[in-house]
């Protein structure tokens, strides 16, 4: 029994981690006042580039680096469009996703039937032998540890450093930040690029750890779920983590329901994460004050210093 529970919890951690990376990245982007709806596109291009580079070079870590670079590159396109060319952020984000799905299918053609051995788990000596806590906390894969570190770093950065305060201030009022002499556009660029790098990392986790395979459209809406998670978390990193693992759990439950002898067609079970996303969005959005108080005030609005 304990074995099964540990198994389910581990699977939940694994399913939640791509969401952790992508949603934390998007959180930082949105805190600067920029809404990037292209997470799905950045994630899937990250996934395919990571997988392709890992398959060609035989080095998984080169793959991870390629994912990060690819996600960042995609974010750069979005940044140029919205920050330099002042495009509508909603339209530019959608374009990024459509482009990313097409591009990833094109790049991934030669890799659809390639098998890779994913990134191995690290067993921390002694600690990993502790019953229950050992397998759950001390023998995970390195990217999962990395996601914990990223969470701590982002939470510290946003709420304990001056730079984090500046980022949040820009998200609230770019006009004030500019009048104080801060380079708003440059800082927003950095926030957008960071979001892209994290989405790329989410793609790397999917393609190099979680599956590890390349399948066309394998992100399956996880980028959009990550966007919903940021709203669900009312723009707070801690709640992003909770939400991500909650969704990881929902994803995993569908594989186990049939094992428990419940006869529900698999297609209907596959709807669960998407329906759950809608339910949590409704639950959080009905309190209009929670959204108004927590959402960065300039979120989604184009800003040009000379206007």
């Amino acid at each position, binding site marked *: 029994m304990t074995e099964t529970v540990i198994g389910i919890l581990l699977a939940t951690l694994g399913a939640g981690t791509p969401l952790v990376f992508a949603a934390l990245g998007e959180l930082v982007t949105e805190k600067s006042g920029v809404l990037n709806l292209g997470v799905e596109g950045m994630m899937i291009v990250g996934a395919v580039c990571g997988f392709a580079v890992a398959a060609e070079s035989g080095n998984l870590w080169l793959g991870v680096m390629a994912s990060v670079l690819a996600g960042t590159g995609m974010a750069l396109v979005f940044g140029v469009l919205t920050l330099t060319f002042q495009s509508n952020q909603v339209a530019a984000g959608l374009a990024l996703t459509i482009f990313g799905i097409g591009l990833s299918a094109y790049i991934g053609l030669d890799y659809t039937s390639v098998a890779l051995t994913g990134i191995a788990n690290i067993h921390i000596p002694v600690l990993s032998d502790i019953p229950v806590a050992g397998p759950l906390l001390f023998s995970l894969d390195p990217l999962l540890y990395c996601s914990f570190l990223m969470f701590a770093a982002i939470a510290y950065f946003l709420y304990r450093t001056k730079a984090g305060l500046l980022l949040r201030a820009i998200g609230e009022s770019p006009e004030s930040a500019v009048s104080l002499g801060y380079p708003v556009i440059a800082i927003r660029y950095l926030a957008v690029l960071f979001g892209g790098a994290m989405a790329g990392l989410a793609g790397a986790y999917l393609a190099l750890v979680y599956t590890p395979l390349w399948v066309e459209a394998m992100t399956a809406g996880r980028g959009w779920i990550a966007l919903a998670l940021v709203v669900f978390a009312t723009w707070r990193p801690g709640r992003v983590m909770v939400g991500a693992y909650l969704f990881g759990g929902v994803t995993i439950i569908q594989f186990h329901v049939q094992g428990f002898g419940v006869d529900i067609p698999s297609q209907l079970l596959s709807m669960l994460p998407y329906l759950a996303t809608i339910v949590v969005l*409704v639950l959080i959005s009905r309190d209009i004050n929670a959204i108004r108080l927590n959402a960065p005030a300039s979120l989604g609005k184009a800003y040009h210093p000379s206007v």
Partner: protein
Amino acid sequence: MIRIEPRPQPSRLMSYLSPLIAVALTLVTGIIFSGLVGMNPLDAFHAFFIAPIDDLYGLGELGVKAAPLMLIAVGLAIGFRSNVWNIGAEGQLTAGAIVGGGLALLFYQVDGVWVLPLMVLGGAVGGMAWASIPALLKTRFNTNEILVSLMLNYVAIFLLSYLVHDPWRDPDGFNFPESRLFSDAAMLPVVLEDTRLHLGSVFALIAVVLGWVFVRKSFVGFQMQVAGLADSAALYAGFRRRRMVWIGLLVGGAMAGIAGLCEVAGPIGQLLPSVSPGYGYAAIIVAFVGRLHPVGILLASLLMSLLYLGGESAQMELGLPSAITGVFQGVLLFYLLAADMFINFRLHVVTPTVGAASGKAAS
């Protein structure tokens, strides 16, 4: 030094030119790309843009693919104009195909002239029902319609997949996940001989006209445009925001639903696990490239249809993957968004002030 500065008035000329610039830049990108992957750019251009439409059948196919894009984009544009972001056309299309196609299966081998109109109505109702979910949640609970409508795309596709795998599977179909072939009374008639161009293309043209009337002549259309341009002005004038959300989503849903029905009762002829090569997403691009205007959408949907056909033809003639279509759809929208900047901004060449001042002194 060149500086970007806002125009005193948005440029009308640029708003018409910008889609043309975007198309031209996409073409140039395509030519450079084909050169980079070692193809003769002329061959690639021919395979992509000429070969698919060099005969009557090809021109018919252009209409076959443009029809759903036109229908969906006209509907979406009405919402987009008032900042109602319906990204769920793919799901609404699927819902329309499920309801309309379900009626075709229900009245299997029933011969009656009423079958087809009923199916079209069913398609519209299915699409509207699916779109009413984000509308209801947006107006009642302030839920983001982008995310809800998008999540419902996945749900609709799983629902269709379930139906054709299990309850609606063809009993004589060797267990393939597909429904029976619709009987003749449930199929859209072909309107141009020797092609596959079906009645759906006529629906699309009617939609363009109705869309134009709605945008230009109706008071609700005017209200929605005001709300899109200046939300606070609309609020001050007492226009009801909720009603606009409902109209924007329901019209988009109805059009997408009819498009879905036209696909299954037209070129496909049965229900399959997948009934659309991403028309619901491509139509978003069509709406933008067409400047959210029905006539612009008519032209943009023909262009986007050609991109689909070109992708298929390039796959057959050049061995290029058809995924290339998605890449160029995205590139086209990138260029359009970038070019759109010059509607509201212009490049201003700044002459160094020091030089100007000394020039003045000398004279």
